């Protein structure tokens, strides 16, 4: 069965990075697809418009867990603009690629991260700060 998965994916599944949650998070995002059954929740900490910390929890198949883990590694240290541009494809490449049946429903990390960034932006606007994503401001 392990032959079905790339070593990078198995590594992220067995030793996922940044699992957990951030109690005083600056942004929280959640993506779930009840039909497919996978759900990912992401917490971010932001400083100087950069992502200083990311944590995730995932309910899903090995690919869903691995892509979420890979996403956190890609996001940490990036500016919000850069992080918002992390695509599903970039995440999929980070776990060695995904088969077509996994590509749709098991690759929710990037979308959940985007939701968390948007959540941060909305909160910032509500606090009177100018939104920091150029394209969204």
């Amino acid at each position, binding site marked *: 069965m*392990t032959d079905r998965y790339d070593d990078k994916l198995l590594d992220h599944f067995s030793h996922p990075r940044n699992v957990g949650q951030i109690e005083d998070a600056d942004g929280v995002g959640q993506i779930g697809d009840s039909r*497919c059954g996978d759900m990912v929740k992401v917490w971010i900490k932001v400083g100087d418009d950069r992502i200083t910390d990311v944590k995730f929890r995932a309910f899903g198949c090995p690919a869903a867990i691995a892509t979420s883990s890979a996403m956190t590694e890609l996001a940490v240290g990036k500016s919000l603009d850069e992080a918002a541009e992390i695509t599903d494809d970039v995440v999929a490449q980070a776990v060695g690629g995904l088969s077509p*049946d996994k590509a749709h429903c098991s690759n929710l990390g990037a979308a959940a991260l985007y939701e968390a960034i948007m959540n941060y932006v909305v909160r910032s606007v509500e606090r009177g700060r100018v939104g920091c994503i150029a394209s969204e401001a």
Partner: protein
Amino acid sequence: MKKIYLDHNATTPVDPRVLTAMHPYFSEVFGNPSSIHAFGREAKEALERARGRIAHLLRAGEREICFTGSGTEADNMAIKGVAHSYRNKGDHLITSQIEHHAVLASCAYLEKEGFRVTYLPVDGTGRVDPDDVRKAITDHTILITIMHANNEVGTIQAIPEIGRIAREHGVLFHTDAVQTAGKLPVDVDALNVDLLSLSGHKIYAPKGVGALYIRKGTKITPLIHGGHHEHGRRAGTENLASLVGLGKAAEIAGAERAEEYKRLTKLRDALHKKITDRIERVFLNGHPTQRIANTLNLSFAAVEGESIILSLDMEGIAVASGSACTSGSLESSHVLNAMGIIPELTQSSVRFSLGRTNTPEDMETVAEALPPIIERLRAMSPLT
């Protein structure tokens, strides 16, 4: 690391005794059973001995056994064969929502041809209410097809009762007994069935062979046309060695079934107890008692089935799941959905299906491997 196989509802290893029985029928006794010379006659005798053993297992007549290439083919043949033969009598079929895809897809195909199909619901344990069958029968009903036991959850249906209702109304009755032949007593007269499917590789015979019991007098339009094999019901030179294996497997199952059933029930219930003693929020899918001895389908709240399977696989333990994406399908188990299991728990299901190779030690190994896996996955789950 000793590997532990707990996926016997998917397939079983060929029993060494079956393999030994098959050996001479590749290169020594290789004749075409349809040939009239000595080589052919010897092959024919072996083929008919195998047929006799299947007939004996089912308490059926030898002429009533038609060999096929799989359980799926037997299901297709029964359903399409009856529908096409009895179309002048009616255009309605009755089945259940939890059938194997071999049955569901055959019914869906017939719907495209203009037949009407009623898909009966099941209760929370996976049982069809025989009264629902009675109510669904119309003057146009030509076939009822309900599986004997479900492959995912193991729930056993009230086949004798449904068969009695079918007979009262003069409707033919087929059962998919792929998961029960060789496990439960399968007596076609006691079950009141007119057609019954079985598969070789679920009973320690090779893959690529199955059989359909066709009660004398039941008309069947063949799926495969050609020579006069299988009394004109299924063309194609018979898979001799594998069918000899199927016969031997049926003989062994018949002799050892009762003891093995008791042994597997004990092992399965021990595994169930060990798991629920050590892990919280574990739910049984399927009927608590009306369930085949070897099947244990559990949902582990807040964790997804495929992640459990991969984690166990890394420890050499093979189990199955009905959850999303595992078989390239994005949909969760149609069986668990029909039973009304909530989506989160259908995604969390794992099927343990036991067989001849399993020991009490295996149950302990699995029960020891599971808790840290569930704990790890629950720790990273956003669900509580």
